[in-house]
């Protein structure tokens, strides 16, 4: 059961081949047996899982099931879940049990999906290796000495190791796509504003976006159908109508123009990764697509731009964690100042504090124009690069990451090296575009991800390309040895 796709599981549930209760037990058992090696979950509430599964079974019996009714889904621990601890990977929220659900959770509940558990993540989604979590690093199922990527590393590892059929993640600068690439799964970051941010703990408000992570483009489409849509409680949520993201999956790629930005294939790209991507592009060509050389001349500025804007927004988004109304509070504060400074010293980890300080600096008197305003201007230049490209092509393709997963600890003491991991993904967030990573081969048994980028609200087109690619290839069906069979 655990190796089946969301689409297959849905059919099996509706055909009464198995119940949601059985399915849930299956994944709970796998988590109990296998997750010690990966550390991909922070919280699993068995009783809640089983209660939700029973409710789903009733709905299945009543014939009112949706495509997701009874399907266990793992959620990144950044989404608030009513009555269930939501830590955001931080000591600051280790004791935080929200009395409300994120809109995304409400939507999955409405469709009868089962919350399987809350997955590990970089603290406040700040990281590219899942090593900044208060709950310890996540390990890559393909090789447990490697990082799974971040910040949605727990979700990626859980899906890759078949501890969950699918999961949710968030992507501020690559946090869905990079771990999807490192773990050999499929993940899509929708257009900014496509999925509600309400109840998703904010990192950088103008960049954050939630999306699905699964083992195929088709499963991502099924999840996105549930997640997407306008939320009147999120001012930045788009009012544009959603579509059935499954409806175009099978469309032909004949005549599709795929742009290859030369900046994504130059210096810094590992040779093995480059050849995987080239092979994948040939495959797409064989499916009828035309490859077109394009240029994104400002792409080298996406790292500095991002590392001004994201920390600046984060520095004030994280001011609410002050030890007054919820979350961590230091012991015996002597005065208000002590309450604030010690609570925040203790509650936040090193990377989070670093970004708060950088962001505070960038916004402070005398530096605002040179840093924040400048970065917003360059952000427009980066967005304009994409706008020009999409006048010539339908989709942009390239590598998701410069190389495959690296060893735990290899970059954790070098923030700048870590930031370079996101060199191909950051620009997509800055421009608010949809971006996707699909498995495209292996380098020395390490998965490689092909990144697909579309114009605003072109999620269905990306999923279509991903799906046709997956029909022609089998990279997405490979499973890590550590998670298959009993001999782990």
């Amino acid at each position: 059961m655990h190796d089946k796709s969301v689409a297959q599981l849905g059919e099996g549930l509706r055909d009464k081949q198995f119940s949601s209760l059985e399915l849930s037990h299956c994944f709970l058992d796998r988590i109990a047996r296998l997750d010690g090696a990966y550390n991909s979950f922070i919280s699993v509430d068995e009783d809640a899982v089983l209660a939700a599964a029973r409710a789903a079974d009733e709905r299945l019996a009543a014939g009112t099931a949706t495509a997701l009714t009874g399907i266990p889904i793992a959620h990144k621990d950044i989404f608030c879940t009513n009555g269930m601890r939501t830590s955001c990977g931080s000591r600051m929220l280790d004791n935080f049990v929200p009395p409300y659900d994120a809109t995304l959770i409400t939507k999955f509940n409405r469709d009868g999906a089962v919350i399987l558990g809350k997955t590990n993540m970089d603290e406040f989604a700040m990281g590219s290796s899942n090593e900044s979590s208060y709950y310890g690093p996540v390990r890559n199922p393909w090789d447990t000495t490697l990082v799974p990527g971040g910040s949605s590393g727990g979700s990626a590892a859980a899906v890759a190791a078949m501890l969950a059929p699918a999961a949710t993640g968030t992507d501020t600068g690559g946090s869905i796509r990079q771990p999807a690439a490192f773990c050999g799964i499929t993940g899509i970051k929708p257009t900014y504003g496509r999925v509600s941010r309400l109840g998703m703990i904010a990192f950088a408000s103008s960049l954050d976006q939630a999306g699905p992570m699964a083992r195929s483009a088709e499963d991502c489409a099924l999840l996105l159908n549930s997640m997407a849509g306008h939320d009147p409680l999120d001012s930045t949520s788009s009012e544009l109508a959603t579509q059935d993201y499954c409806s175009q999956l099978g469309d032909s790629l004949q005549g599709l123009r795929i742009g290859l930005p030369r900046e994504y294939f130059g210096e810094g790209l590992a040779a093995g990764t480059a050849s995987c991507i080239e092979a994948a592009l040939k495959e797409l060509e064989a499916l009828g697509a035309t490859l077109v050389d394009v240029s994104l001349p400002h792409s080298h500025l996406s790292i500095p731009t991002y590392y001004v804007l994201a920390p600046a927004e984060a520095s004030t988004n994280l001011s609410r964690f002050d030890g007054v109304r919820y979350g961590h509070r230091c012991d015996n504060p002597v005065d208000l100042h002590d309450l604030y400074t010690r609570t925040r010293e203790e509650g936040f980890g090193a990377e989070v504090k670093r970004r708060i300080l950088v962001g505070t600096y960038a916004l402070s008197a005398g530096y605002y124009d040179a840093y924040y305003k400048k970065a917003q201007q360059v952000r427009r230049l980066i967005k304009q690069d994409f706008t020009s490209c999409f006048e010539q092509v339908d989709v942009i393709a390239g590598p998701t990451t410069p190389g495959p997963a690296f060893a735990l600890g290899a970059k954790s003491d070098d923030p700048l090296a870590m930031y370079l991991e996101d060199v191909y993904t950051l620009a997509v967030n800055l421009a608010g575009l949809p971006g996707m990573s699909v498995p495209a081969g292996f380098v020395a048994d390490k998965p490689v991800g092909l990144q697909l980028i579309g114009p605003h609200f072109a999620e269905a087109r990306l999923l279509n390309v991903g799906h046709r690619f997956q029909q022609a290839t089998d990279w997405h069906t490979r499973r890590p040895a550590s998670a298959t069979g009993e001999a782990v």
Partner: protein
Amino acid sequence: MQWETVIGLEVHLQLATRSKIFSGSATTFGAEPNTQASAVDLAMPGMLPVLNAEAVRYAVMFGLGIGAQIGRRSVFDRKNYFYPDLPKGYQISQFESPIVGRGSFEIQLEDGSTRSIGITRAHLEEDAGKSLHEDFHGQTGIDLNRAGTPLLEIVSEPDLRNAAEAVAYLKAMHSLVTYLGISDGNMAEGSMRCDINISLRPMGSDTLGTRTEIKNVNSFRFVEKAIRHEFERQADILEDGGRIIQETRLYDADLDETRPMRSKEVANDYRYFPEPDLLPVVIDEDYIESIRAGLPELPTGKRHRFVEQYDLSRYDANVLADSRTLADYFEAVVASCGDAKIAANWVQVELLGQLNKAALDIADSPVSAPALGGLIQRILDNSISGKIAKQVFEAMWQGEGSADEIIEARGLKQLSDSGELETMVDKVIAANAGQVEQYLAADGDRRKKLVGFFVGQVMKLSKGQANPQMVNELLAKKLV
């Protein structure tokens, strides 16, 4: 040395919306602590602001009311600082692109003259919660009910020159915003709070001195006292050759003094930047015109109209146009009785006198405008005299019924039947033969005085109800 005071005011006006500016919480005053604080107001993780349409509409109404430019694209910013009554660690405010730009409005001074005061800008922002310092074992309690209440911060130019002008400005502001219906203007409940920027300079100088800011002054009287006190404090320092320190001070009403605020000593760097959880508010011409079309007549316009249309004195027009409810009441009385001068007199003297005595608001007057108009009609048609009318008004105030009912019940109607009056006049003449002789012998002024005697006797006989004009006419006919 002669010092000139230069004053600019920042008024924080609570807008009278039902719900908060960024959340669906109620804004009712006086609720149990933290019962009107939603997840958004408490800055729970993942919560997001959504802007209240009515707050925007009220701000635009204000802008149109002072003839200001409306920001076609106004932007919300985060003002970052840590304070326990500020749950997010930032206040959502407007910095570079406020919703209301430069405007001006007219204030009335005590000598009857008017002055135009410049408004620099007005912007929307959210209120903070309240810190309560009562004894919680030496701790402070935080109530976030007020957090997120919509505020319009109205910043004046440094155009005011003394405490009386500052108070006149606030009174005019109060009048304007209650006319517009955008705030209840209740200073005791903090709906209108005032920060005072004040500096001194030698009379005749045109450079500004160093200013201090006095925070949160919450009544007209305290504004006056705080300014007088701060003037003296600054003048003393300057006379002694000292320098004013730019700082934020707090007015202590109990001690009648200002003192520096300790908590704001640390130089703040608010790190304003555009609030990424909100988008620019774009306001188009149609929207502005639809609001303009629905604006009520404003105090200045009404005062001018009262003088012209009703031929009132400027003083009377100022009093009657002071509040919209009073002005509406007055005009309803005029509509009912048809005589603006008598109506103005009755509203100002009898009605306002009784209301003051009873400490009642015009809206709670036991005598309605049509009822007062009905009473005035009886004066105009000679049914009762002005003196009797005051008695009738007293009875109306006590709830004894309409003017007609009271006149009827108490038999106060003026006696105008010429036959009956003639009988009375004859009686009085017959009973006072001596006075008649004196009258006939007298001339001019003396006669006038003696007529008064006969009128008085007839009035006595009629228990005050005889129509004095008719009595006079009859006497003139008979005493020959």
